[in-house]
């Protein structure tokens, strides 16, 4: 299924990762109080592989009664867990980190099957970052006195966490690792399209001997998430997902004592100046918008290119897009996998159609899409202005809007001209310009001469409608401490 422009002289033979390593059971329960249990109302839902539409497993679907059960379990576990010496909590987290490393190939295959993203990414990005995140926060558990929040900072209690489908296990790690390190207990709801890796994580918790009730996993839909967030005995709410839902959550917790962190949408500007290292900028642009099929909140979805190099850059970019390999996500040479769900594909398609209708010029490399599954070809739009919806709305797909600017001032003004403020990129060989522009950008993460880099030590989170609070690093502890 590779694109036509890739050399037919040197055609790469299929190189599929074996899926046998991930042994998926025909059904899974909710993970409450250390046990897999059925939903109170017996409901189940199916999770499918987005690249084939094959049903992978049938999953118990949490309802509000289950939420209550899980929160109670987490509350019961809280007393002992929070009273454990930090050094003991640390060891549990170190164990989890190590088991994740041991099982990383299995988890990578599983994640690729359930999410649709290429094995190259789950193997080389998601899983190493997941293990690193647990390893990092493990080390904090017995050092909280020195974290800058005063002596003996206390945990909040039960954390209700709702995570998205784009980085299922990584988002789980971002939520659970700091929560446990600081002594909280957790009820986590994975996204309905990607419940499997969280359920495998439940098994890892059991292997690590984690006390019952410290981590509870509730697969389910938005209603379960809403019930979790609204539950009166939840002390901390952490959400990663859309800005619309984030606002709803902010309304829900209004007037309560719940501490909230929200990591929401974005419309990141990737600014390329005329003195940029062009070949690396092209890679950065590709990585910025096509990593994980563009289903990334911090994606560089708006390319702001200095008008004087627009033609040259676009030519290079198009040539590079023609080498992207789209297809079987389990193939080790696949660059572009499947869109996570039919719903998401519909949304991408609709926004792209609007882009065309509004007069922007659409381009994709010659690209044959598989017949089953949810697929969208890498797409770029030129002749885009700030007024176009594709320049303002988060598409959350492999779609790049190209805009131009003439001066650094204009670049910054356009970059900031959005209600979002999550990420931005700057490409220039001039050091002082990087610092000046980075200083003016209203975004929580600025990548200069690189893009989409993540690290557990590096705080991540947005300005404005991209949310509030930071995940990662010392900063990430604050969200789970009563400070």
């Amino acid at each position, binding site marked *: 299924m590779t694109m036509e422009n890739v050399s037919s002289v040197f055609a790469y033979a299929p190189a599929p990762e074996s899926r046998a390593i991930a042994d998926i059971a025909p059904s899974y329960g909710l993970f409450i109080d250390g046990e897999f249990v059925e939903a109170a109302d017996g409901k189940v839902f199916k999770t499918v592989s987005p690249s084939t539409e094959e049903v992978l497993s049938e999953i118990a679907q949490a309802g509000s009664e289950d939420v209550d059960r899980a929160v109670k379990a987490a509350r019961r576990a809280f007393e002992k867990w929070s009273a454990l010496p930090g050094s003991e909590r640390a060891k549990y987290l170190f164990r989890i980190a190590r088991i994740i490393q041991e099982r990383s190939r299995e988890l990578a295959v599983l994640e690729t099957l359930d999410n649709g993203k290429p094995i190259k990414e789950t193997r080389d990005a998601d899983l190493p970052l997941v293990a690193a995140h647990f390893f990092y926060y493990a080390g904090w558990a017995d050092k909280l006195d020195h974290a800058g929040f005063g002596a003996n900072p206390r945990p909040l209690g039960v954390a209700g966490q709702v995570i998205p489908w784009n980085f299922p296990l990584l988002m789980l790690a971002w939520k659970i690792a700091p929560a446990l390190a600081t002594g909280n207990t957790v009820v986590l709801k994975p996204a309905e399209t990607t419940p499997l890796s969280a359920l495998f994580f439940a098994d890892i918790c059991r292997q690590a001997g984690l006390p019952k009730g410290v981590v509870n996993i509730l697969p389910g839909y938005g209603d379960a998430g809403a019930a979790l967030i609204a539950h009166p005995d939840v002390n901390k709410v952490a959400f990663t997902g859309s800005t619309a839902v984030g606002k709803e959550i902010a309304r829900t917790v*209004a*007037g309560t004592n719940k501490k909230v962190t929200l990591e929401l949408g974005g419309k990141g500007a990737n600014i390329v100046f005329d003195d940029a290292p062009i070949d690396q900028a092209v890679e950065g642009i590709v990585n910025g918008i096509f990593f994980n099929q563009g289903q990334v909140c911090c994606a560089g979805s708006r390319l702001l290119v200095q008008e004087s190099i627009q033609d040259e850059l676009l030519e290079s970019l198009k040539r590079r897009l023609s080498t992207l390999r789209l297809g079987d996500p389990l193939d080790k040479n696949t660059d572009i996998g499947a869109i996570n769900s039919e719903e998401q594909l519909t949304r991408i398609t609709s926004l792209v159609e609007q882009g065309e209708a509004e007069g922007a010029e659409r381009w994709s490399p010659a690209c044959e899409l598989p017949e089953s599954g949810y697929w969208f070809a890498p797409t770029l739009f030129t002749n885009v202005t700030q007024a176009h919806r594709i320049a303002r709305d988060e598409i959350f797909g492999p779609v790049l809007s190209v805009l131009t600017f003439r001066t650094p001032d204009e670049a910054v003004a356009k970059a900031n001209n959005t209600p979002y403020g999550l990420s931005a990129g700057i490409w220039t060989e001039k050091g002082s310009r990087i610092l000046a522009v980075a200083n003016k950008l209203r975004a*929580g*993460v600025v990548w200069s001469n690189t893009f989409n*880099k993540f*690290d557990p*030590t590096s705080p991540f989170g947005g300005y404005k409608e991209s949310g509030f609070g930071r995940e990662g690093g010392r900063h990430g502890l604050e969200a789970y401490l009563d400070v």
Partner: protein
Amino acid sequence: MSDARLSVFKTYKLYVGGKFPRSESGRVYEVTDSKGKWLANAPLSSRKDARDAVVAARKAFGGWSGATAYNRGQVLYRVAEMLEGRRDQFTREVADAEGLSKSKAAAVVDATIDRWVWYAGWTDKIAQVVGGGNPVAGPFFNLSSPEPTGVVAVLAPQESSFLGLVSVLAPVIATGNTAVVVASEKSPLPALSLAEVLATSDVPGGVVNVLSGRTAEIATPLAAHQDVNAIDLAGADEVLAKELEIAAADNLKRVVRPQPVDYAETPGIDRLTAFLETKTVWHPTGSLGASGSSY
């Protein structure tokens, strides 16, 4: 002279964009002391006054947030200097407003002046306390720095009309935010007088804007305003705070909920960090030459 000289009353005005306008609504309300004695008429601000104040605060944000931290520290210290010279006036106003004895009111004013000094010293230190380099696992320089959130609506505490006011205002502007302050509804006069001090203390116009009137009436449009980035609900009661927090969700304002605070105590850094965003900048480091890997 046997007969006392007829004193000159002060017309209390709003403080918006460095100017002292009356409320555009033309309305005023009576401000009394703790025993119900008339003290003055204060402007009764309208939604439009709130809107104008937000515009002024936004306009001032670029310059103030871009000023050096050292400069902001000097300006805040200047406020303390100016207040010191008007200590007696504020002692009288606070005594009237809060029903305190002269000596207790003087102690409040002293504490308030000292609070400006405390925050003046913070401007160029907070970044070192809450920011810093992150040791990422790769050939990248990675630095997190705090930056001001933007325009902050501040509902000043209702009871502590001066010390409480400064305790919530100073941390907002110390870090480079600009503020729209809603003064204590019952006791707005110290806040309105503070504006006169700010105007003569090198605080650029628009950095602090002071409105008086009905807290609920002014706060509602501020909480819903799409160009306000954050709101401190110190001066809202439980019911109003919830309404405002719901309205604030529309553009995901950072919200500080009302909580019991002893303003006489030395503050922590909570109110400084509440209106700071963390920006993390990555840059490749690489090796010195092509002959060795960057990794």
